[in-house]
């Protein structure tokens, strides 16, 4: 529940690599690859962040919105659910769930100014967001509470006595929302993996501390592998790669 990740629906519904990478038949039919899908999700994650800065909501709202977005596409197709509308609507829904509601018309205003796909004009209006909100609730199976690694990160850093690493580990966590890790692992494991990676980088000796925690180091290493894969292959996308992927999205105007 709210205080206990282990009793939460998020915990019961953690997905494996295959499930998060699943590409719907409809998307396959239009020639989209799972690589394209991955790139589109990264781009839309960034788009949610951009909109969030404009409408001024906090980090946790952004993180929840991105988790919604990624969860929706483990079940739905890009063909049926236009990511250019889904991404802002996820932000809209997350702002309600996190008790800092953003008005739909404000979102529309910024969607028109900052387009999700630069080549395509945004023709969506308020009713489209409201309609999509309903569809998203359904697609999310009405599970709206999302746990994030941030809180555990701060507690863990304190426990390890390395609070000077807050900044680097915090931005690591932020970066990881460009992956599907939040759908796959318990948030505190993601936090631990970020501490693990950051301490390797900064040559902090946290081995003894990790040993004392008695967590499953295999899981930490799996997450670490994902982190390295992300930074190696996806942290900065070339515009050609991005354009090629976005071009596969069905034209809606």
């Amino acid at each position, binding site marked *: *529940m*709210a*205080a*206990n990740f282990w*009793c*939460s*629906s998020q915990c019961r519904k953690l997905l494996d690599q295959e499930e998060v990478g699943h590409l719907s038949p409809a998307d396959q039919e239009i020639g989209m690859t799972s690589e394209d899908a991955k790139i589109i999700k990264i781009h839309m994650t960034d788009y949610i962040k951009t909109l969030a800065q404009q409408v001024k909501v*906090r980090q*946790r*709202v952004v993180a929840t919105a991105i988790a919604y977005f990624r969860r929706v596409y483990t079940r739905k197709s890009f063909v049926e659910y236009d990511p250019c509308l889904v991404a802002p609507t996820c932000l*809209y*829904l997350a702002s*309600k*769930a*996190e*008790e*800092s*509601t953003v*008005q*739909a*018309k404000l979102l529309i205003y910024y969607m028109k100014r900052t387009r999700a796909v630069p080549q395509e004009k945004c023709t969506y209006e*308020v*009713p489209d*967001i*409201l*309609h999509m*909100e*309903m*569809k998203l*609730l*359904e697609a999310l199976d*009405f*599970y*709206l*509470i999302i746990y994030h690694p941030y*809180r555990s990160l701060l507690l863990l850093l304190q426990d390890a006595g390395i609070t000077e690493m807050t900044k680097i580990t915090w931005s690591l966590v932020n970066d990881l929302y460009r992956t599907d890790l939040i759908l796959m692992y318990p948030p505190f494991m993601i936090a631990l993996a970020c501490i693990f990676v950051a301490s390797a980088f900064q040559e902090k000796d946290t081995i003894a501390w990790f040993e004392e925690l008695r967590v499953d180091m295999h899981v930490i290493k799996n997450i670490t592998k994902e982190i390295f894969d992300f930074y190696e292959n996806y942290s900065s996308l070339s515009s050609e790669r991005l354009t090629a992927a976005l071009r596969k999205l069905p034209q809606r105007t």
Partner: protein
Amino acid sequence: MVDASNRTRPSWLQQYELVGKIGEGTYGLVFLAKSKLSANKGVHIAIKKFKQSKEGDGVSPTAIREIMLLRECDHENVVKLVNVHINHTDMSLYLAFDYAEHDLYEIIRHHREKLSTPINQYTVKSLLWQILNGLNYLHSNWIIHRDLKPSNILVMGDGDEHGVVKIGDFGLARIYQAPLKPLGDNGVVVTIWYRAPELLLGAKHYTTAVDMWAVGCIFAELLTLKPLFQGIEDKSTHNPLQLDQLDKIFRVLGHPTPEKWPTLNNLPYWQTSRQRMQGPKSESCVLHQVVSLQQKSAAYDLLSKMLEYDPCKRITAAQALEHEYFRCEPVPGRNSLVPIQPNEKVIGYPQRPVDFSADFECSGSQPQMVTSSHAVNNTGAASVPGPRAMSQQLPLGNMPRLAPYGIAGQTGMPGLPVNNLPVPRGPQQPHPQQGKRKEPIGGIQNPGHYASQSKSRRMQ
């Protein structure tokens, strides 16, 4: 001939057999239905329909809160959200709950107005224990309910869970662990009679203790059948300071002092209220007289700890469950309505009145006649002569919806089947308007709804 609305009817509706309407509020309507699914065939379900808000802001934050929290909650004393459905055609949202036949508002009223006898001690204790048990679950999961009052405490009717308490209506509930905005930002909450003194004095950072105050008020009301602090709400002001409510509290518990409540001087309205409140300021507490309990009794000890002024010192749900009161005879039980002692009389509480003319699609003001085959006709109402003819004489607008908490002009016919007709009663006892329920999030407040809010049943 098939009605046009029938064709657009969402398929999920097929799993329910509509019985009728049982409540109405700002958010929408509450229906009673029976499940047609083989797994729980015939089981009663309460379906709360949320209308799309007209302001163009989509699903109401109230609905979002209820869905989000209840989707994760799993406890015997918390109402169970069975399912959520959407009708995309009219953008309405339906929440399906396990149906509870009774609630404390109706139970208390039945004793006050029909039986003129107090609720027996076993029942009071069992109800209270289960409320605390549910609340302890919520609080330990960082959820504050914020709107506890008798009509939100549901009690299950006949069946496996007979007499089991379910805390309902999470439309104002919030997770309070690291909220993004201070909790005080959500506007005035909790019906005025059950509102804790720190809220009345303008506290910004309130805690789970506000729920415990409300439980104290409910406990007293179970004992005396009368609301403990019936203040008259000053609706002219948006600020939380409610002088009459404070006055009612102070008269019973004595005036608080900074010695007993150290943070009192920090509360925004403390000085103002002192200046504006006339008359002698007695510090003496007459609570024991008001509730007719011996000051040395365990019941009084528990009650006075729930009604402790200082929220930091107020008893918590977990502590209350361990209180001596629950260890002495009669010990509380799971079926709060049926005492274990064989010589105790079992009271048949009335069932909720049902408006059989209602359809899932109807709005409160403009009922549509039911055309679908699975609605009214199949409820078995045919065994009662003329329900439909009768219902046509009783347009929805005239439904006895007078009681301050709900729609219920209770027919008060215990033991009759659920398809009883709602018979309008004589004039209701005048009750002061219940506290307004302000839509919390800034910018989408909806002041026009306050008036009708008091009528809302808020079933679950």
